[in-house]
Structures are given as structure tokens and as C-alpha cells.
């Protein structure tokens, strides 16, 4: 996969000024790292975490449909929407939500593009220091480097290989303040849920199910 630096030189000039970490991006950027992880092919010895990581790297599909439920203290009712998550080698991830309030987010290299109601924002991931830990996580996973992963997150894995839960707590104080924890659950190499709880009680629950070819996201070919 080409490095972010070479990508940078190609990106357009539209820029967004730096602002505090966008915690919401963190959760599913993590997915990107999981989806991108190359099949490790190592023997499934080691502990549960090793086995889960290896299974994910080996089996996680390139495309996932999901149902996201946002439960927000500022809103009267929870909000439920359907969307798609697609990975295009070598380094593009598209998250799209259909419908009138929908949006498409594309991460390509180190650039993130948000398209929503005809408006388009480009964000340099490097300008999002809150996501720095995730960028490191990304690199750590690509390198099959569990040590680097644990340098940025406190990891807690529980359950069995066929029903596991992985909790990630950022070690960075500022990031942890905004994003106290991420919870990922699944069975072998199959993802079931991602639960993100942000400071202030803004909660997102994503439930994954295999995508049918028919309802492929518009962002992916």
C-alpha cells in the first residue's frame, strides 16, 4: 500500500482547518484497519486476542452492510439508519448511508472526504490529532504488530473464539476524554457489533450483516 506521503502530493487543495478530534470517525476507522489487515496465516495458537485478530484478518469480508442506531441524550428518539461499508484495495474505505439525511465518507490514503447534501469537505487525517492513535493502530495491524496496538490502546478481550468481545480504551488522555471506549464483538472472523460511546453519552451501535451484491453502496464500483 502506498504511503500517505505519496498520496498527499496528489490530493486537491481544498483544506479544512484543524479542529478538535472527531471522535465519531474513530470507531469505524478502526474497522478500516481490521478490513485492511492482510491474512496472517499463522497457526492459531497464542491467546484469544491473537486468534481473534488472525481470524478477522483472514475472514473479514470486503463489504459489509450495517444498521446504525444512534442514541443521543440531545434527541427525543433514537435514530436508526442503514448503510454500507466497503473496502477497495489498496487503501480506500467507503462508508455510505442512504436516504435524505445520508452521507458518504471516503477515506483514501490519509485524506478523508465527507459528502453530504451536495456539500463536500476534505479533511487531512494528519490534522486530526485525535485520530493519530488510530493511524498508529492501522500501521500496527498492517505490520501484524500487537505490541504497537497495545501501546496505543488498553485491550480487553473476553468470550470464546465463536463469541468474542474486544474492548479498546485509548491510552491518550485527551482522546480518552472524548472517546472513553470502543467495543467490538463477533464470532471467529465475522464482525457482529461495534459500539462507540462518546463523552456526553452520544452512543452509536452498529450491527453488521453480510451485504448482498444487489445493494452495493454507490461509492464502490
Amino acid at each position, binding site marked *: 500500500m502506498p*504511503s*500517505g*506521503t505519496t498520496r*498527499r502530493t496528489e490530493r486537491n487543495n481544498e483544506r479544512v*482547518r*484543524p*479542529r*478538535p*478530534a*472527531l*471522535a*465519531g*470517525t474513530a470507531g*469505524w476507522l478502526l474497522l478500516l484497519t481490521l478490513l485492511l489487515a492482510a491474512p496472517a496465516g499463522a497457526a492459531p495458537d497464542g491467546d484469544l486476542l491473537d486468534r481473534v485478530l488472525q481470524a478477522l484478518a483472514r475472514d473479514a469480508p470486503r463489504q459489509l452492510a450495517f444498521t446504525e442506531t*444512534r442514541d*443521543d*441524550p*440531545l*434527541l*427525543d*428518539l433514537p*435514530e436508526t*439508519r442503514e448503510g454500507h461499508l466497503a473496502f477497495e484495495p489498496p487503501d480506500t474505505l467507503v*462508508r455510505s448511508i442512504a436516504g435524505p*439525511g445520508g*452521507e458518504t*465518507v471516503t477515506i483514501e490514503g*490519509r485524506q*478523508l472526504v*465527507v459528502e*453530504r447534501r451536495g456539500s463536500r*469537505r476534505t*479533511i*487531512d487525517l*494528519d*490534522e486530526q*490529532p485525535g485520530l*493519530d492513535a488510530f493511524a498508529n493502530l492501522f500501521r500496527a495491524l498492517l505490520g501484524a504488530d500487537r505490541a504497537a496496538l497495545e501501546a496505543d490502546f488498553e485491550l480487553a478481550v473476553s468470550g470464546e473464539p465463536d463469541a468474542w468481545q474486544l474492548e479498546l480504551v485509548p491510552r491518550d488522555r*485527551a482522546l480518552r*476524554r*472524548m472517546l472513553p471506549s470502543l467495543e467490538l464483538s463477533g464470532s471467529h472472523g465475522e464482525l457482529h457489533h461495534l459500539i462507540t460511546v*462518546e*463523552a*456526553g453519552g*452520544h452512543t452509536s451501535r452498529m450491527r453488521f450483516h453480510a451485504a448482498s451484491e444487489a445493494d452495493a453502496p454507490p461509492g464502490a464500483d
Partner: protein
Amino acid sequence: MPRPVRTDTGRPMTPGVRAILGLWLGGLLLAALLLVLRGELITDLRGFTPDLGDTAGIPLDPGAGPAGRMLLLAVEGGSAEQRAVASDALVDALRADPAVARVRNGRPELDDRALEFVLAHRYLLSPRVTPGQFTTEALSAHLGERREDLSSAVPRMPRELIARDPTAESLAVLEQLTAQAGAERGAHGVWVSADGGRALLLVQTIAEGMDLDAQAGLLERLRDQFRALEAEHAVAERSLGLRIGGPAAIAVAARDGIRGEVARFSLLASLALAALLLGVFRSPHPVWLAALPLGSAVLAGAAAVTLVFGHLHGIALAFGVTVLGIALDYPLHLFVHHDRARSGGVRAVARELWPAIALGAASTMLVYALMALTDFSGMAQMGLFVLVGIAVAAATTRWVLPVLIPSHLQHAGMPLARVALPAWVLHPPRVARAGLGGLVLAAVAVIATTSPFPWEDDLAALSPIPEEQVALDRDLREALGLPDVRHALLVTAPTAEQALRASEALAPWLDALRAAGGLGHFDHPARVLPSQAAQHARQAALPEPGVLRERLARAGNGLGFSEGAFEPFVEDVARAREQALLEPEGLPDGLLRGALEPLLVPPEAGPSWMAWIRLGGVRDPQALGALPDPDALVGARLPAEASLRHVDFRQASEDLVTGFRDQALERLGIGLVAILVLLLLVTRAPRRSLRILAAVVSGLLLTVATLILLGVSLSLFHLIALLLVTGLCLDYAVFFSRPLADAAARRRNFVSVFVCALSTLVVFGLLGLSSLPVLQAMGLTVVPGVVFSLLAAALLAPARGAAAAGMRHPEP
């Protein structure tokens, strides 16, 4: 100084001798004590500038002001990641340094405390707070955006803040505080150069840019930190390098370069001079004895300046010591004339030479007395320094040296090495004198026809900064989008509030100038901390809680927000309406204070606050120079007590140089006339007086014409060298014009002047070989100066018969 008791026995330690030595040593001790206890050497340009009256306290060199306190750091080599890691590590290390006010490398420098402060005061600090921001329509637009933020994977603002700050004022404030026009972040989130090959940092120092000792200390620590961190992170492969730009870094590098070179060449020149004296006198004693008048002169001059001015300026000291080189001639005259056993011993020689030495010294002192009386404090210091120094050197030669010469030499004399002199030197043919006249006329023609006169007013042209360092500074400055070092606007006002109001009032005019293309960008203190008037207006723009709730309810209709979701917002607004206004003194350390401090300077000595308006990308300096009347410019809003001016730092330093030069030339001109009067009064011999003056003027004219013909642009340093030449030439001419009938005495007299000239030539000839432009300028001026002075003085000396006939009066 009392006249010594006349004892021709030459036995040391008679009461008279004791008194002389006591006085001398006591005086030196007093001077040394004064310097140790009260001495203060100032090295920045502040103490050197003329007293500007109402604008006193405004630093005029480019290293002053906010731009001077910026160090620009570049980390090179290694990989982009290694550079970013090094950049972060440097930031951590420098944040702990008490000499650093602020350090940035492109990452947001938000700690919780700074964020909390900004949040708590956002309605006072945000420029968007106007009544229009809180209408139902505006709130409706804001709430719509916030509703999207709640469901977006990439919200425009942290969801955490939405309930408190739906209009996103905290983001507006942060954006304004952290904006750094032009700086580009690279692949690892830190500032990088355009090609990505350097990681960039910006350090703001506590010390003024021209406080070179403090800056040098910080630079040293900075490099140490970098080396330590290099070792810590075990940078493999290619090692990283740290390069530092900024006015202070340049000035420190220049100073170190000058110091090293000056020390080297001073040592070299001293050794050469010692060798010359040893060769001429074939005795070690003249070597150390010759240093005494000069040493005493420097000590006394420094003490006198400290006593009068309270401090001594480094530049005045350096210039003064150069000009005091004349003090070396006095002992040499004494030694040359004491070349054989004489009835009166060395003291008789000293007595015999005194009229000539005193006359030369007094004439030279006249010029410096005139300089000492200027209001240009740097020049006044130099004048006083040289004035006192020459007096002390002459007196030391007259009374102290004779008793310090070892007793076996007191009467025996110091036989000279034979200096072979051709007869025509002693008896120059008339045609030579005519030739000199022709040369001087040609010199006058050269000087008069050279237009414009080749003055060099840019001191930087003589500074020993490598081109590479200048280029580095320019590159870093450009990459970081830093404001211009040359131009700034300065507002002074009795209170901080007035200064802030004035800078607020200027913003629209500057915006217009920017729109017209005359200006790239600008930065002013009220952008960081608004005036209390502006803060008050913002408070008044905030709606009452009841009104706000009602508008929110209507604005949020249909968006799905729960009842009371924005109650934290309503509470914050209500609190902001009653909040105590911010003032400069009350800001906490950190982001806000760091951003404000370089722009808003509290009064130190003077009565005024200074608000700096930094300008970047100035394309139309004329528009700034033609700053219209401040009141007309901004209406009645600028407080009456405030003043506004455009500061062109380079122009200011050039004006300083021009001012010094004009004053020096004027004083030299008046001084020459005064010298003529003095000579006339003392010698009562108009012809001799005119000869002396003609020799001095001829020497100077020929020297200047030579420099012009060599294509040299004349700087301050050439001028200082010319002042030395004036003193030397006066000395030579006075000695040559001594009415001596005795051929042996005339010969001795000539040798004496010749040895003096030779010693000066050796010293300054060596300086002329230096690669340092300052030393080169001195050497290049003094060498032809000495040659022409000697020539003019020798040719204008009265012929033997004329001298005897012209002696109507015994020597004074």
C-alpha cells in the same frame, strides 16, 4: 596631575616618583573598581540610538519587537517520521524551558486548561458574537448544522460541545488563536517545508531578540536538547540535523564570528607589533611599556563613560578602542627620542617632547569633545571615551613611563636599530610638495565628481553572515508564513484598553489595504484579546435567557432535539452576560497569553503601552509610510492620547547609521576649524598651524579618494577608521612641524614618526587581511590613511631654514 618633583638623579622612589606612581595606580584602581561595581556593558542597539523624545523606548533594530523574538527551527535528514518525532520531542523539551514563551510545531497546543478558559470566555472572545448571531433565523441554521453533526460519522464540531455551544463560538476562537497563515502540515501532523524535507518549529523567546547573551544561552540549550534527543531516539541510518533561523540566531552567529575573528587578529596584530618593537629597540622593555598608556586609556575612558552615562555601550567601546590606537604613538615617540645617553635622562626627553605630544593630543581631543557633546548617546559615549583616553595616555607617557623605565635604561637610552633613511626623505625636493598639491587636487576632483557618494548605509552588508544562513532564514520564514521583519505598525497609548481599541480601529483600514493588494496579511493584539469596549458590546449582543429559550424552541422545531437539550447553552449565555471582562493582566499562562504577549507590550520605562500590528507580504510600503492622520483614518474612535506610526526597521537602522555619519562628519568639520584656532592660539605661528591642518586635510582627502577609486562603499566602519587617521595625521604633522634646527634632532624626529607609522601599518595591515568585512574596512582605510598622512605631513614640514626662521616663539 601635579608636576613631579624634578630629580635628575634618576633614582627611583623619591617622594615625587612615589606620588606619581601612587596617583596613577590609585586612578587605575578607582577606574577598575568603578567598572567592577557599576559597570554595565550594553550590546543591543537600544543604548546607541539618539534620544527620540516622545517615541523613547521604541527599539529600532530589526531584532526588536515581536518578530525579533522568533526562532525558526528546521529538523532535516532522516525519515519524515523521524523528523516528526524529533519535532514533538523538541516541543516537549522546550515547553519546560523558562526562556521560552511559546513553542509550536503545527500540532494543536491545547491543554485542558486553555480549552476550558476559551470555552468559559468564548462569548467575549469570538468575533462572531453580534446580535445577528442569535436571531431565530441564525439559530435555526446553527441547530440544523448541529443536528447533522449528531448523526454524522464526521461531525463538524465535537458532539460533546453541542449542548453548550451550538453556535460553535469556541471553534471560532480556537481557529483564530491557532491560525498560522501559510504553514503547512505534513504526513505526520507537524509543520513541514514545501518540499516536505524539513520539519518546522516556531519558538518565541521571553528575552528580546537583541539580548544576545540570553539568546545565545537558549540556542546552546536548544542544540544540546536536540543532540540528547537524537541519542535517546537512537536515530539510525542518516542522522538528523537541526538548523536555526531568526534574527536572534543570525545575530548570535554574527557576533560569535566577529568575536572569534577579532580575537584571532588582535592576538596576531599584538604579536607582530611586539616583534616589530623588539626588532626596532632591541630590548623587551618598550614592548610592555608601550602597552601602558593604551591600557590606562581604555580603563579610564570606560570608567568615565560609565560614570557619566551609567553604562558603556559595546559599540562605543569597540569604536573607541580603535580610535585610541593613536595612544600607541606617544610612548613610541618617547622611546625613539630617548636613543642615547643624555644629561637629563628619559625625563628630560619626556619634558622636551611634551609640547608636541600635548598639542597633538589636545587637537585630537577637540574633535572628540565636540562628539561627546552630541545628543546621539552612542557617539557621545565614544567621544567621551576617546577624549578621556587620549588625555590619560598622554599624561601616562609624560609622567608615568619615565619613572617605570628600568633604571639602567633611564640614562643610557634605548639605542635604535639603524633605520636607513634616504636623504630626500629628510629634505624633500620642492617638486614633491608640488606633486602632493596636484594629488590633493585630483583627490578633491575624484570626491567631488563621484555622484552619488558611495555611502553604505545597510549595516547588514558588513555583517559576516554567510549567504547560506540568510537563505535559510528566508526559506523558513516563507514556509511558516511569518510576518515581515521589516515593516510593522506601532500603536502607543497610555492604557492597554486604548491600545487595543486603536488596533481594533485599524483593522478595517488594513483589511481595505489587503483587499487592494498592498498587504498579504496582518495580525494585531485585539484579535487575541478584544478591547473591553468590544467585549462589552458582545455581552450586550447576547439575548436574555427567556428570549433565547423562546428562539431556540422555534429554531429547533422539527429537528428532533429533546426538550431542554440546549439548557447548558442558555446557562452559559446568561453567565457570559454577567461575566467580568478580560484584561491583559488577568489572562492565564498558555495559549492566550502566549499569543498576546508579543503583540501587546506593557510599559516598562515609558508611560505607554505598545500594540504591535504585524504585517506580512507588504507589497506597498508607501501606503504604510503615508499612513494618514490616525483620527481621520479611523474616525473618532482612536483615543486622543494614542499615537500610531509605521515602523520600517531597516529604514530605522539606516537612519541610525546616516544620523551617526552626518553627526560625525559635522563634528569632524567643526573640529578641524577648532583645531586651527587652537593651534593658532597655542603656537602663535599661523604658517605652522596652517601646515599642520593642511597635512591633516590632505591625508584625509587622499585616503577617501583612494577608497573611492578602489570601488569601496564607505560605511560607518570606514568612517571610524578615518577618525583614527585624523588623529594619527595630527600627531605626525605636529611632530614634523617641530622647529628643530639640529640635523640629528630632525632625523630622530623623523624616525620617531616613521616608527609610529610602521607600527600602525603592521597592526592595520594585518586587520586588512581579515575575511571579516568590519576588520577589512578598518584595515583598508587605515593603511592608505597612514601612508598619505605620513607623506603629507613630511612634505608639508617646514624646510630647515624656514623652520628656524619661523620660530618666533619658543615652543609652548
